[in-house]
């Protein structure tokens, strides 16, 4: 089945098991507007993988129910789509999509600001282009949610945001305007010519100094809040006598949010020694750390596990050269087997392929020691967990966003095509890819 066939049911389409007590029906008031029927449905949720199942989508763009076709009532008039395989819309945990554009030229390359090594105040929100051609291209493989933003390559390069791959403006696409602060501990963020950071040790010293400055700012804010409360408590308090707040600074404020664990810090580190530095920093400042890239994570499994840190692993087909020379197709499987939460990212590519496709990257993991289910988890529910959006996306469960991908067979097979993509209940791609 290589094309998307949409039908409208002309009544109760599936009467096989209409014993009312057993049949799954929509909660009262919810209107199913789309039914997607899969010969195999990977829910990636508690319902597991169900053969011959249906996903009902309500008119709010949410999943109304997921259940076996035989015991599900599809309301009359519902548009239905049949597919061999249905999965949740895929979730890319780390990308520069929409910032690093198809032409790779000045006018569409906003993934890395090189004017200073530490700029957490750079919002991905101000740089993401939902009209970038690679957005629709990526979506056509079944990717529906992407954590994208500033690339690795500076000590602190900026923020990431989470978007759905729909909407004509960034506001329409945004799921979370700031999702991570992106940092890099590796030679790719080092400077020549006497500029800092020029060494790995200097990278750490600079990061520690920024975080200590943020601790002081946080203290000053707290002290100001206390003084203000005391001032207001006075019966004769005059506004002009109110204590002055510390001066605002976007950079420091971002680091305060990191210290408060309101935002995770994603540290790109490939060599084991850089991974160790990231873990050291986490311990000192009690950060909410996400290891990004993490080429040599397979040699640091115990340390990563003890730190309770998730890994957003490099794309499997990343070139094995320089600091990534020890990349292995089997790293994802190793991390998963050790109980570490792992997502597979598309990452940033300087040249080609300009946008990597996580479906194709996870396929390599599925062929190298990871089960089909686990490999699918790295680009659905586990990616959503790491991004803390698993209450909305990443699995097919009632109440979650109706984001689905449909395939002509095993999603990981080279020759399988993605035949349709749905985001928030809307068909956003119907050309076979």
């Amino acid at each position, binding site marked *: 089945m290589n094309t998307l066939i949409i039908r409208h049911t002309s009544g109760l389409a599936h009467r096989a098991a209409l014993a009312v007590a057993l049949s799954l029906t929509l909660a009262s008031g919810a209107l199913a507007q789309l039914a997607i029927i899969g010969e195999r449905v990977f829910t990636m949720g508690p319902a597991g993988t169900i053969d011959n199942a249906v996903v009902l989508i309500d008119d709010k763009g949410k999943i109304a129910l997921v259940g076996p076709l035989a015991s599900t009532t599809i309301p009359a008039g519902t548009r239905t789509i049949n597919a061999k395989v249905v999965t949740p819309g895929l979730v890319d945990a780390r990308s520069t999509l929409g910032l690093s554009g*198809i032409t790779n*030229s*000045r006018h569409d390359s906003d993934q890395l600001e090189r004017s200073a090594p530490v700029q957490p105040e750079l919002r991905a929100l101000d740089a993401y282009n939902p009209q970038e*051609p690679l957005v629709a291209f990526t979506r056509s493989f079944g990717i529906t949610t992407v954590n994208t933003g500033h690339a690795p390559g500076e000590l602190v390069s900026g923020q990431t945001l989470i978007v759905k791959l729909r909407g004509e403006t960034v506001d329409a696409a945004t799921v979370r305007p700031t999702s991570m602060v992106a940092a890099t501990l590796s030679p*790719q963020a080092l400077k020549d010519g006497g500029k800092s950071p020029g060494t790995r040790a200097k990278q750490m010293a600079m990061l520690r100094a920024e975080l200590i400055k943020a601790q002081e700012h946080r203290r000053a804010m707290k002290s100001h809040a206390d003084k203000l409360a005391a001032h207001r408590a006075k019966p004769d308090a005059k506004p002009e006598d109110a204590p002055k707040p510390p001066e605002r600074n976007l950079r420091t404020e971002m680091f305060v949010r990191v210290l408060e664990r309101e935002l995770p810090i994603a540290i790109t580190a490939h060599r084991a020694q850089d991974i160790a530095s990231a873990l050291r920093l986490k311990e000192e400042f009690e950060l909410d750390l996400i290891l990004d890239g993490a080429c040599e994570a397979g040699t640091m499994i115990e340390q990563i596990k003890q730190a309770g840190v998730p890994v957003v692993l490099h794309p499997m*087909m990343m070139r094995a050269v320089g600091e990534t020379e020890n990349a292995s197709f089997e790293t994802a499987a190793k991390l998963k087997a050790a109980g570490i939460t792992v997502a597979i990212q598309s990452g940033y590519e300087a040249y080609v*392929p300009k946008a990597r496709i996580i479906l194709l990257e996870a396929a390599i993991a599925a062929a190298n020691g990871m089960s089909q289910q686990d490999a699918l988890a790295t680009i659905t529910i586990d990616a959503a967990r790491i991004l803390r959006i698993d209450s909305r996306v990443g699995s097919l469960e009632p109440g979650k966003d109706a984001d689905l991908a449909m395939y002509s067979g095993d999603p990981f097979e080279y020759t399988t095509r993605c035949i349709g993509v749905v985001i928030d209940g809307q068909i956003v791609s119907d050309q076979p890819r």
Partner: protein
Amino acid sequence: MVAFALALMHGVAGAQAQETPVAFTGARVIPVDAPEIDAGVVVVHKGKIVAVGPAATTAIAVDAKRVDCAGKVIMPGIVDTHSHLGGIAGADGSSTVQPDVRVMDSINPADSGFRRALAGGLTTLNIMPGSGHLLSGQTVYVKLRAVPGAEPRDGVVVRIEDLAIRNADGTIAGGIKMANGTNPMRDAPFSSTRGKHAAIVRQMFIDAQQYARKLAEATAPDGTVNAEKAPARDLGKEALGKALSRSAIIHHHTHRADDIATVLRISEEFNLRVVLQHVSEASLIPAQIKEAQDAGRVLGCSVILIDSPGGKLEAVNLNYDTGRILDEAGVLVCFHTDDWITDSRLFLRMAALAVRAGMKRDSAIKALTINGAIMMDLQDRIGTLTPGKDADLVILSGDPFSVYTKVEQTWVEGSLVFDRSRPVDRLHAVGGWGAGRDQEPYFCCFGSGSFAFKGQQYQFGGGNSAATDAADTQAK
């Protein structure tokens, strides 16, 4: 880094295999020039294929070593018409045309990339210099063959001469690498417009024609050259002479449809034999390419399929359909890795993605084997499992186009050169400590940096790329 060097340790491998016939039995055999055979037999002896056929009708010598391949798939060794393996560097920054430069003089045979290529089932490569010049040098055709004595870590150095394929006259085989479009657009002493590029290339060939004429005038009918009348020896013009006499194939990097048309125009003017390489927009002009192929000036298209389009302006129309469209138009199609651009270990995947986009499976298999051989003038020696041809074959665990299929063994000229069950080979197949490269790749347009072109600033790199800091590699 382990040496690129091959097996003697297995019973059937190495030099002995040349003396004792080896019979591969029970596999689904894809001969390429004949229908697939279920439970077929392939017999090799002294480096050549001696028999291919169904088990019932294919004789196996009593003394033959049998390799049980039940449940496996056997196909010819895979041919890559465009590779940059070996840490190569061809032409330098002194000029945009350098036909005197041979890439064979820059290859490091110890590069781990060669082992990884074997892990992908590749047996024959066209190793080329980069695309940052209009003409970046002479290419070399190599076999990743077993070299007796060169066991990993024993210190035996393999030379490019051991790997090179020889012409009938004993010279080393290869073509000429040319490029047009944006990659060779650079500051002086290079040039940066398409019109100038074409003019430079035409004058280059005209000069080579004049050189060849003078040399012919100075040569007596018996072949003796009058040294006083002959022009001073010119290595570059000698190389171009081979292209003008149609004995050397020009492998031409070209993306945009108008750039492809320019290659066709120049190949007509000088009656060249050209393989169109990359061809992101060939699907826009298949009929014109077919016409040039029928006229004998284009051998075919060597297509690259990248997971997503773009990376530079002239590749924004790159797509998965090019192989199918050209094949349906009757254009000979092969694929290439362009390794480092794509990974030799996953070369089968490229053809599989073309099948995903509707290319016929048979055509996609040919595009990995015989069609590439044709585009290197090697079709009489490799590319199919045919008695008399080199015993280059790949044993796969399953369907060639499944993601789950593994290359289990690779054989070159009757010797086992990759065996996934051997730790050193498995390491290079899946990666891990010791399998990669601690040095950045070299060739045009990979790395970071920027250049100005027509008022627009273009940039490469700047982010989470292993080669981010290789700023100086750009277009050198």
